[in-house]
């Protein structure tokens, strides 16, 4: 135990005395927290819906030079358009009425016009656009405007009140929503983010642990280490130190972001709640399962680190672990929308995937307490098992130099050692 604590202390000292580790942690935490303060200084009302910067000169905004406005060309063969309506839908654009479709097309092609519309009939029009954007607001807005023209025409033709029809059409309903278990939509985004975070943690810190162990082989410090302490103390010390280092780094960054959001929630108009307003119990579950999954893979990375003699060979020995992590990651993300499905239920009991899938089930689905306990016990036992097998591989692999040792060869080697 004493030797384990000494290795742990030394490894932690190494992490925290590394300038890069500390500087990046602080930079990312400050940057994350700082970004969330932005609406206090910059007008992000378009996104947040909250007008924070009060010194907004409306006249200045409306004085936008006509020349600078993007032009939209219109040929109305059906004579149904109302320019007031169009200008209400397109306040930032200038409308140019044109009589020739060919000229309209040429204007769009030469990008003199942002887009062009040829209305053939009240319910038929042609939309000309040079490059259609992912979020094509021009096309959508024009369609809405056309529907208004259509409804207005219809009301006139049938002697109906357009205003009454609009009221019926846009009826305001009072909904009293009572969610009796989980709001999947509300929890989806932070679950998504947490699955990505654990994946990043495992890959980043797992790789760091593997590199640290392989470096000890390549600089031969292992020769003195293995004769000074036990493989268990070495591997457990390194992995737990990596876990503490990783948790502190991620904890500091996430803590700073969540704290900053809590202070700035008002100016964001709660628009980031789906990402950053995380219930404490979900954070707790994430801490347990996320840390468990991280430790499980950290021990595997520790073992594969001992199978390489050179740091450049780590990718060869860690390829299998990396593939497993990535498959689990993809499965977890694709199954997030069906958290009560059979696949995710099975995955939530496997130690290779429970860190993300059980967490997702708890946050978004229906899961009973016994399932959580069983899954966590399986994960815990697997961590301890992987730790001890990892230590055996570590012991077997540490003093074998040369070509990387295959994982299967290592397992066979352990069996022989046991015999």
């Amino acid at each position: 135990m004493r030797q384990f604590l000494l290795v742990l202390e030394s490894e932690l000292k190494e992490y925290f005395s590394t300038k890069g580790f500390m500087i990046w942690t602080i930079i990312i935490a400050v940057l994350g927290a700082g970004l969330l303060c932005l609406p206090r200084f910059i007008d992000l009302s378009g996104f947040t819906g909250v007008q924070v910067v009060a010194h907004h000169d409306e006249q200045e905004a409306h004085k936008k030079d006509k020349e600078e406005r993007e032009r939209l060309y219109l040929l109305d063969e059906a004579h149904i358009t109302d320019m007031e309506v169009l200008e209400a839908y397109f306040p930032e654009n200038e409308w140019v009425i044109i009589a020739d479709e060919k000229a309209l097309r040429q204007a769009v092609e030469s990008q003199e016009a942002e887009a062009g519309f040829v209305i053939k009939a009240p319910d038929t029009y042609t939309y000309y656009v040079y490059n259609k954007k992912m979020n094509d607001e021009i096309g959508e807005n024009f369609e809405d405007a056309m529907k208004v023209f259509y409804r207005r025409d219809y009301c006139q033709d049938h002697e109906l009140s357009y205003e009454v029809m609009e009221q019926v059409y846009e009826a305001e309903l009072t909904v009293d929503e009572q969610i009796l278990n989980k709001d999947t939509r509300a929890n989806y985004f932070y679950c998504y983010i947490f699955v990505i975070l654990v994946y990043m943690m495992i890959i980043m810190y797992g790789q760091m642990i593997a590199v640290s162990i392989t470096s000890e082989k390549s600089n031969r410090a292992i020769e003195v280490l293995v004769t000074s302490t036990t493989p268990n103390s070495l591997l457990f010390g390194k992995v737990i130190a990596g876990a503490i280092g990783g948790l502190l780094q991620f904890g500091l960054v996430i803590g700073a972001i969540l704290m900053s959001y809590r202070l700035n929630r008002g100016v964001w108009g709660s628009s980031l709640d789906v990402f950053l307003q995380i219930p404490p119990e979900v954070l707790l579950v994430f801490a347990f399962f996320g840390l468990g999954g991280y430790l499980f893979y950290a021990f595997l990375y520790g073992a594969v680190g001992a199978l390489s003699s050179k740091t450049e060979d780590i990718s060869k020995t860690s390829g299998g672990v990396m593939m497993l992590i990535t498959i689990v990651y993809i499965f977890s993300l694709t199954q997030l929308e069906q958290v009560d499905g059979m696949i995710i239920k099975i995955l939530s009991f496997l130690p290779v995937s429970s860190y993300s899938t059980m967490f997702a089930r708890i946050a978004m689905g229906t899961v009973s307490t016994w399932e959580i306990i069983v899954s966590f016990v399986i994960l815990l036992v697997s961590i301890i098992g992987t730790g001890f097998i990892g230590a055996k591989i570590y012991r077997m692999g540490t003093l074998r130099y040369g070509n990387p040792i295959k994982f299967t060869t290592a397992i066979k080697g352990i069996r022989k050692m046991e015999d």
Partner: protein
Amino acid sequence: MKLEIKGLYKSFEEKEVLHGVSFEVESGKALGLLGRNGAGKTTTIRILMDVFRANKGEICLDGKPFKSEKVKIGYLPEERGLYPKKKVLDQMIFFARLRGMKKKEAEESAHKWLRRLQIEEYAPKKLETLSKGNQQKVQLATTLVCNPDIIILDEPFSGLDPVNAQILKDVVNEQIEDNKLVIFSSHQMSYVEEFCEDIAIINQGKVVLSGNLKEIKKQYGENRLIISAENYSLEHLNKKLEQELQTLIQVEEQKKDFLILKLHQDCTKKQVFEALGKTDIDVDVFGRYEPSLNDIFIAKVGE
């Protein structure tokens, strides 16, 4: 303290690399563990350090089964290894504490050894910034920092200049005088001759020669004489002796400065001396042959 290695066998995969290695060493003495590359010296040491387990055989300390974790061992591996990016003092303290020392005690001991090896000014520096010789001295200081009872030195002199080698020699001698048990593995026979009372030569996983070095030398020099002459070159002297003294001796080997003669059974040094007096050979050097360790080593494992 008496450490006994008894009949160690070890196989890797299907290949047996140790075939019953046995030797013993006592406190206040140094054992020279010799052998060609790949003979099994490092494997034996690693079994002793409990890095590998022997397939068969045992190691005893004062008659009881040896447990490496119960005894303080200082090990200087042939493949030097410390952390290049860590400060010298920090890693010495770390290794001393791993081997059971308290922090303050470890710090004091680290300073003591850095001072003794004349490298104290490098204590706050990263290892990688030191010269190879000084890194070697740090490695030795790290080996001795825990005040070990058993010291295992695997090629400790490689990479050292004569001045540093002298410092290291003094340190090793002090440790032997301090009643430490020293196992000294090296290819540099002159150092082994200087420190070691006993030797064990391993060849292809077997101890082919072991015991007290003086007695081994005496045994190897038995019935052997050396001779050189003022008036004959060694080649001519060789022919002359084979012609005129063939009933008494046989020329066994020609060295750079003398010939080695082997006495026939029941012949004596005196008879040879008298016979020489009757020839025209103007004897320059004549006496009992005492082989160097190098000669013994080559004779045992060179074929």
